[in-house]
C-alpha cells in the first residue's frame, strides 16, 4: 500500500532527512570513484542526484514493501521480469529471464530460462571478492527467503498457497536444504514453477523487488545487515546508505543490453521532448553515480532542487503548483521554470480511500435486517456528505483525480464513463436519506475516526467533522482517535477495531485485481479487507476473475464487482493523486515511481551542465 498514511506528520512536515553527505560519508562524497578504462575523461564522475520523500526501512528484497525500498532494490538487484521503461499503460518485459516463459496449457506450470553471464557485483562476501555468475538456484533460494520467518519477510502473500509445496516447506521449518516441488531449478539457468491454480499475475510478481535475486553468500556474510548492504546483480552497486541518502555506483560488470526504444514502448509524440532518443542503442547504466536523498520535507526537497543543481529531479510539491505551473492538463511550466526544467505529469498507481468497517453494528452488519437497511442509509449519507473535491482542493491543490469506485485510473480496466454520483457531494440528499430512515441528531451513532498521529491526518478529520456537521451530524459525535505509530494504527485495522478505515493503497501490479482484493471476503481482518465487507456475489465474481487472463470478459467482471462496492456504500472512494516531476534540462529521463518504482533509474543519463536534453525545434514548454 502507499505509505502516505504512514508519514507521521512530524516526519512529513519537518522531518527532512539530510540533503547532503552524512558525516560518515564525508570522505567518500567527492572522491574515490575509479573511472573505468577507456571512458572519456570527464571532470568528475557523471552523477545523477534524485530526491525522495522517505527512506526505505530496509534494503533486503524480502522487505521491499514500498516504492522507496523498491527504488533501491530493483537497481541493486535484478528481477526476472520488469516493466518497460516507456510503455504506458505498463507492460512487462523479460529482464533476467531470457525470454517469456513456457507456460503449460492448464496455466499451472511455468518454465523460465535465465540469461547467461549475469554476474553479481563484486563484494568481499564472495571468494576472492569477485561476483560470481547468477544461476537459477539463486532465484529459488531468494524466493525461499520469503518463506523463512527469520527474515521477517513481507512479500510471501504473493505466492503463498499458489506455488506447490511452498507452504509445506515453511511449516517444515524453512530448511533451505529441502526442495520445494513447485519451485525448482531444472539446471543452472532454467527454472520450473508449478502452481496450485492459475495465477495470471505471477509474472508481475516476478517483477517485484520481493522476488529480486540474492546470492546466498551475501546472506551468510552479512546476515541481518543485508538490509543495509545489498549485494545484487543490478545496474548499480550501493556504496553508502543511511537514513539520509543512498549512494550508488555503476556496476561495471552489468550486462550489456543496448536500449531498443521501440521495445521499451517509446511514444515519439508524447515522449520526444525528454530526449530519450539519445540513449537508443546504448547499454545502461549511463551514469557513474546515482544519489537518492531521502528528505521527508517538501520544502527541503524543493529548495535543494531549485537552489543549485545538486538535486536534478524531484516531484513538484503541490503547494508550489500555482506558482510553477502555467497549466495542469497538459502540464506546462511558467516561463521562468520552463527555461530550466522539464516536466512530466503522471497518475498515481494507487489511490486513497476511506471505508466503513462492517464489523461495527452501528453502521455495518446488524442482526436486525431493518437496522441493517438503516445502516446502509447512514453510510450512503456519510458518503454524500463527504467532499472529495474539497479534499482535492485543500490537500492536492486540485492536482488529483477523484473517481468513483475502486478501479483506479491507471489500470486498463478503469471505466471513465462510470457515474460520478458516488463521489459527488450532495448535502440535501444526505439529509433526506437520514431523515427518511429515522436518523436524528439524537440517535446518530458516535463515529470514531481513526488516524495516525499527523497534523494532516488531523485536518482530514476536522474537514470530515465539519462536513458531517453540515448534514446535521453533531460534531461531538465525530471523535478523532489518533495512533502514535503507524504500527499501532495498522494493528487497529488488522484487529478490526476501527469503524472507519482511511488509508492509501499503492498498486503492486497494473491490474484492477490488486485493489479489488481489498474487498474480497476471505481477506477480512487481519487481511487486507479492512472493511470486513462480505458480499457473496462479489466474492464469487472475484474468485472467477482471479484465474482469468486479461480479457474483455475479465474486465466486465471487474466492473461488476466495482459497482457492487459502490452500491453497498462500502466507503468513500476514491482519489488518485497526480505527480508532477520536474528535472533539470541536462537530464535525460522519463521519470516514474509507480508500480514497482525505480526501474527507470538505470536509463537516466546526464549531459554536461548547460546542455539541454530537449531536442531542438520543440517549444519551450511541453
Amino acid at each position: 500500500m502507499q505509505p502516505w498514511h504512514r508519514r507521521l506528520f512530524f516526519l512529513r512536515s519537518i522531518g527532512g532527512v539530510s540533503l547532503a553527505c552524512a558525516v560518515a560519508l564525508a570522505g567518500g562524497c567527492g572522491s574515490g570513484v575509479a573511472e573505468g578504462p577507456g571512458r572519456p575523461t570527464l571532470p568528475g564522475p557523471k552523477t545523477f542526484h534524485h530526491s525522495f520523500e522517505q527512506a526505505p526501512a530496509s534494503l533486503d528484497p524480502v522487505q521491499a514493501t514500498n516504492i522507496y525500498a523498491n527504488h533501491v532494490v530493483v537497481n541493486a538487484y535484478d528481477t526476472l521480469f520488469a516493466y518497460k521503461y516507456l510503455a504506458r499503460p505498463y507492460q512487462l518485459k523479460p529482464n533476467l529471464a531470457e525470454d517469456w516463459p513456457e507456460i503449460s496449457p492448464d496455466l499451472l506450470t511455468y518454465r523460465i530460462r535465465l540469461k547467461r553471464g549475469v554476474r553479481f557485483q563484486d563484494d568481499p562476501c564472495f571468494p576472492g571478492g569477485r561476483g560470481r555468475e547468477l544461476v537459477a538456484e539463486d532465484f529459488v533460494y531468494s524466493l525461499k527467503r520469503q518463506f523463512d520467518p527469520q527474515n521477517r519477510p513481507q512479500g510471501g502473500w504473493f505466492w503463498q498457497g499458489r506455488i506447490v509445496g511452498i507452504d509445506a516447506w515453511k511449516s517444515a521449518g524453512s530448511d533451505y536444504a529441502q526442495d520445494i516441488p513447485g519451485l525448482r531449478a531444472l539446471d543452472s539457468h532454467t527454472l520450473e514453477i508449478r502452481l496450485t491454480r492459475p495465477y495470471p499475475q505471477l509474472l508481475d510478481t516476478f517483477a517485484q523487488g520481493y522476488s529480486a535475486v540474492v546470492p546466498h553468500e551475501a546472506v551468510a556474510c552479512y546476515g541481518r545487515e543485508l538490509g543495509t548492504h545489498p549485494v545484487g546483480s543490478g545496474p548499480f552497486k550501493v556504496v553508502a546508505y543511511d537514513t539520509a541518502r543512498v549512494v550508488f555506483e555503476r556496476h561495471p560488470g552489468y550486462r550489456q543490453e543496448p536500449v531498443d526504444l521501440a521495445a521499451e514502448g517509446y511514444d515519439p509524440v508524447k515522449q520526444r521532448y525528454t530526449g530519450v532518443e539519445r540513449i537508443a542503442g546504448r547499454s545502461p547504466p549511463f551514469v557513474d553515480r546515482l544519489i537518492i536523498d531521502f528528505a521527508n520535507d517538501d520544502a527541503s526537497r524543493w529548495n535543494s532542487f531549485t537552489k543549485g543543481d545538486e538535486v536534478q529531479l524531484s516531484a513538484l510539491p503541490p503547494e508550489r503548483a500555482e506558482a510553477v505551473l502555467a497549466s495542469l492538463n497538459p502540464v506546462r511550466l511558467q516561463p521562468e521554470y520552463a527555461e530550466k526544467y522539464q516536466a512530466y505529469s503522471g497518475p498515481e498507481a494507487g489511490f486513497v480511500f476511506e471505508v466503513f468497517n462492517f464489523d461495527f453494528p452501528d453502521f455495518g452488519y446488524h442482526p436486525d435486517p431493518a437496522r441493517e437497511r438503516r445502516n446502509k442509509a447512514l453510510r450512503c449519507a456519510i458518503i454524500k456528505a463527504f467532499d472529495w473535491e474539497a479534499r482535492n482542493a485543500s490537500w492536492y491543490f486540485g492536482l488529483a483525480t477523484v473517481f468513483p469506485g475502486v478501479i483506479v485510473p491507471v489500470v486498463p480496466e478503469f471505466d471513465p464513463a462510470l457515474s460520478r454520483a458516488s463521489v459527488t457531494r450532495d448535502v440535501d440528499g444526505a439529509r433526506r436519506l437520514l431523515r427518511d430512515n429515522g436518523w436524528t441528531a439524537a440517535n446518530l451513532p458516535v463515529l470514531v475516526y481513526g488516524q495516525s498521529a499527523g497534523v494532516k491526518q488531523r485536518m482530514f478529520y476536522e474537514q470530515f467533522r465539519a462536513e458531517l456537521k453540515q448534514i446535521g451530524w453533531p460534531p461531538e459525535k465525530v471523535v478523532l482517535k489518533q495512533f502514535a505509530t503507524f504500527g499501532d494504527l495498522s494493528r487497529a485495522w488488522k484487529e478490526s477495531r476501527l469503524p472507519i478505515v482511511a488509508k492509501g493503497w499503492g498498486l503492486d501490479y497494473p491490474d484492477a485485481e490488486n485493489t479489488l482484493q481489498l474487498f474480497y471476503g476471505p481477506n477480512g481482518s487481519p487481511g487486507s479487507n479492512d472493511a470486513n465487507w462480505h458480499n457473496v456475489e462479489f466474492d464469487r465474481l472475484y474468485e472467477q476473475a482471479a484465474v482469468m487472463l486479461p480479457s474483455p470478459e475479465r474486465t466486465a467482471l471487474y466492473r461488476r464487482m466495482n459497482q457492487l462496492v459502490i452500491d453497498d456504500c462500502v466507503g468513500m472512494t476514491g482519489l488518485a493523486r497526480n505527480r508532477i516531476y520536474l528535472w533539470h534540462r541536462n537530464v535525460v529521463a522519463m521519470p516514474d515511481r509507480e508500480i514497482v518504482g525505480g526501474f527507470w533509474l538505470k536509463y537516466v543519463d546526464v549531459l554536461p551542465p548547460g546542455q539541454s536534453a530537449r531536442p531542438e525545434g520543440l517549444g519551450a514548454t511541453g
Partner: protein
Amino acid sequence: MDVLQFALRKLLAGVPLLVGVTLLSFTLMVYFGPDKTYELLGKNSTAAQIAEVRHELGYDRPFFVRYAEYLRELATLDFGHSDSTGAKVSTLLARSIPVSLALELPGFVLGNLLGLALALTAAFHRGRWPDKLIMGVAVVGMSVSFLIVIFAFQIWFCTSHGLNWFPVRGWSAAGPLDYLAHIAVPTLATVFVALGYNTRFYRAVIVEEMGRDHVRTARAFGTPPLRLLWRNILKNCAIPIVTRVMFTIPSIVIGGALLIETAFGIPGVGRVTYEAIISGDQPVLKAVVGLTASLFVLTLLVTDILYRAVDPRVSLQ
C-alpha cells in the same frame, strides 16, 4: 586512592539508579512501547503470520526474560540489529552521535559563553539600565517557544520568503564552510532560546557570589575587577556552573536535540531515537535509553569529582 574509592562508591550507588532507569524505560518504551509487528507484516496478512512476526521479534517472551536480555545487552554493549533496517545499532549510533555533537556543541558553547558574558554585564550593572535591558531581553528569549524560533529563523534565513542565505535543511560536514552553513541557523536558534535561560541563571549565581564576604575582602585588599571576577566570582560559582554544564552532556550526546534535528532534517541521534520510538525499533530504543542512563550515572560521578576539583570544601566522603 581517595578518588578511586570515591568513584567506586559512586558507581556502586549508581547501580540502583541504573536498574531503575532501565526498568522504567524498558517498561514504558519497550514493553508497553510501540509494536513493530504490524509494520513488518505483509500487506495481506494472516493471524499465523502475526504470531510468526511476534515470535521473531521476541514479543511473546515473558517480561523478565526480555528485561534480563536487555540488561545483558547493556552489559555487553551489544544491542544487535535495528528491527527496521537491520543495521547494527552500534553503527547507527556511531554515525548519529557525532552528528548531534557537531551540531549542538557550537550552540551549547556559544549559548553558555554569551549567557555568561551577558550575565556578568548585567550583574556588574545591577539595578541600572544595562541590567534591566539584558534581563528584559532574557525574559523575551524565555517566552518564545523554541519551535517558533526554529520556524521563524528557518523561514527568515533559509527560504525565499526571507534572506535565503543558508540551506533550509540537511547536514554536511564536507568542509568547514559547508559545516558552518549547515549549523548556522540551528545554532542561532539554539543560542537565541538558551540565552534567556542561561543569562538569568548565570546572573543569579554571579549576583549571589558577588554578595559574599570574600568578595568584599578581596576588594578591601585592592583586587582589580577582572581579577576579582576570575578569582573570587567565577571560580567560586564553579559548582552551579559545572552542574549545569555537566548535566547537559548526556542529553546532547545521547538525547540529541530532537526539535532542531527534526526541523533541520539532520540525521542526529535525537531523530534516530524518535524514529525508533515511532517505528517501534526496540533494539535502538534500548540502546539509547540504556546508554543515556549509564551516561547519566557517569555524569553524576564525574560531576562529583569535578566538584571536588573546583571547590576544596567538597569532601570526597
